[in-house]
């Protein structure tokens, strides 16, 4: 029952090339100053020339924070969801709090948090974890609670223990929703990390954006933004690929 898949690598690349070409034409044609809107070709040149010295160390740093935030945040989110799903009271009590954490714009919390934790970049991952855990928790919990009655009947008909029911039915059934949570976690993690770098400190891609901005090196600003975008995209794609390998029963 497989619907034919279009060649989904070629199409986006073509779109990208078209946008690239258009932008190049517009900037050259209108002769825009390169401090306002550099041509794509200039951005690429800036990216390649300065990558190793000016961008790569910061990219690594940002990646480290994002990675740490995810490595801690995702398992914690899953664990909490597993525990919460057993106690309805916990769910109704904490859901409002979780929602508040998720919906309050991060930019407002980060400065507050930096006040408490200080500007030590090593501790920034905590902010990321605080953003990742609720979103993973919410989605996973939804997945755990939306089990079809007929599957639970199946488990009861075999006198399966609570643990067995969870491992064999509730958890696999929730996997699609769990992956949604993880993907969102990746997005939130990237945004949170860049946000902390915006607020303070001297390392990270977010900081580099501000730095190059202040130096009017606009081409480099765009170059760094492209790196940030690429990071988020690659992370998301990795999770997507994992999902396709694991959740094999949904086409």
């Amino acid at each position, binding site marked *: *029952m497989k619907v034919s898949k279009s060649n989904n690598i070629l199409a986006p690349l073509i779109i990208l090339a078209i946008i690239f070409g258009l932008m190049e034409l517009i900037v050259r044609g209108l002769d825009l100053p390169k401090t306002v809107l550099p041509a794509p070709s200039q951005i690429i040149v800036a990216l390649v020339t300065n990558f190793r010295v000016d961008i790569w160390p910061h990219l690594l740093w940002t990646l480290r924070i994002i990675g740490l935030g995810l490595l801690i945040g995702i398992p914690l989110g899953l664990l909490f969801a597993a525990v919460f799903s057993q106690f309805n009271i916990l769910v109704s009590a904490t859901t409002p709090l979780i929602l508040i954490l998720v919906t309050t714009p991060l930019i407002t919390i980060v400065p507050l948090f930096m006040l408490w934790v200080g500007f030590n970049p090593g501790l920034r991952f905590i902010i990321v974890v605080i953003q990742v855990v609720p979103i993973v928790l919410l989605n996973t919990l939804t997945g755990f609670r939306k089990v079809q009655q*007929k*599957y639970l*009947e*199946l*488990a*009861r*008909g*075999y*006198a*399966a223990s609570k643990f*067995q029911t969870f491992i*064999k*039915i509730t958890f*696999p*059934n929730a*996997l699609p929703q769990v992956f949604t949570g993880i993907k969102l976690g990746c997005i939130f993690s990237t945004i949170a990390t860049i946000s902390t770098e915006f607020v303070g400190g001297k390392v990270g891609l977010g900081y580099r954006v501000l730095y190059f901005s202040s130096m009017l090196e606009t081409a480099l600003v765009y170059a760094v933004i492209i790196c940030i975008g690429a990071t988020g995209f690659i992370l998301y794609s990795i999770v997507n690929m994992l999902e396709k390998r694991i*959740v*094999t*029963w*949904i*086409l």
Partner: protein
Amino acid sequence: MNSTKIKLDKINKIFKTRRQTINALSDINIEVYDSEFISIVGPSGCGKSTIIRIINDIIKPTSGSVYIDGQQFGKKVSRDLIRKMGFIFQQPNLLPWLTVKGNIELPLKIFGIYSKKSIEKTDQLLDMMGLNEYKNAYPSELSGGMTQRVGVLRAMIHEPEILLMDEPFGSLDEKLREQMDIKLLDIWQKLHQTIVFITHNIVEAILLASRIYVMNTNPGRIVEVINVDFPYPRDMDILIEPKFIEYQNKIVDLIGELHLKEIK
């Protein structure tokens, strides 16, 4: 005289929803003997599905007692008692994230009796049903008839002494249903399980069962128990026997004209 395998004593079941109170079962008394094949027949909503769920301890009765092999169900029913039963659902109810093989082996893993031998057994059963090439397929890749067959295999893999079947062939086309009915009788002749078969198809009930519990709705109750006097092994030929028509008429009389459209 065979011993009593399953006994339901004065079972009542009341469902309370937000809007109403439903008197699903009223004073149900059923006795099934060892290796007997009985059927429960009745219109939709008469509670027959509820009854076999009460036998399998999926639903608890509001009052009354359930006995399996003379042992009464308490608040918590021992796993050994539950293991004696295999349940076959109306809709196949396979777990979509497991392969056909994985689904069939599921009861073995839950009961903790999965071993190398089980793999051979699974393969044998799959072969018997002609599903061997679908061993590693997922339920979404199978037709309705195939998934139903897998459901039957899953219910039998742990060699239960009791088979509880909730309109198992209701969603199949007539030809396949007949084939499955005959196949079921064949399996029963060989393995001698105690079978409780629920259907709203009167012809199917008379073909398969040695006794039929006829039920009606509002409230769900047993109207009569009919002895089907055909010897085993049976085949489709008995359908044209005059006695068969008599049984059919008797049941239609009991359940009434109103429900004729639900009876095939």
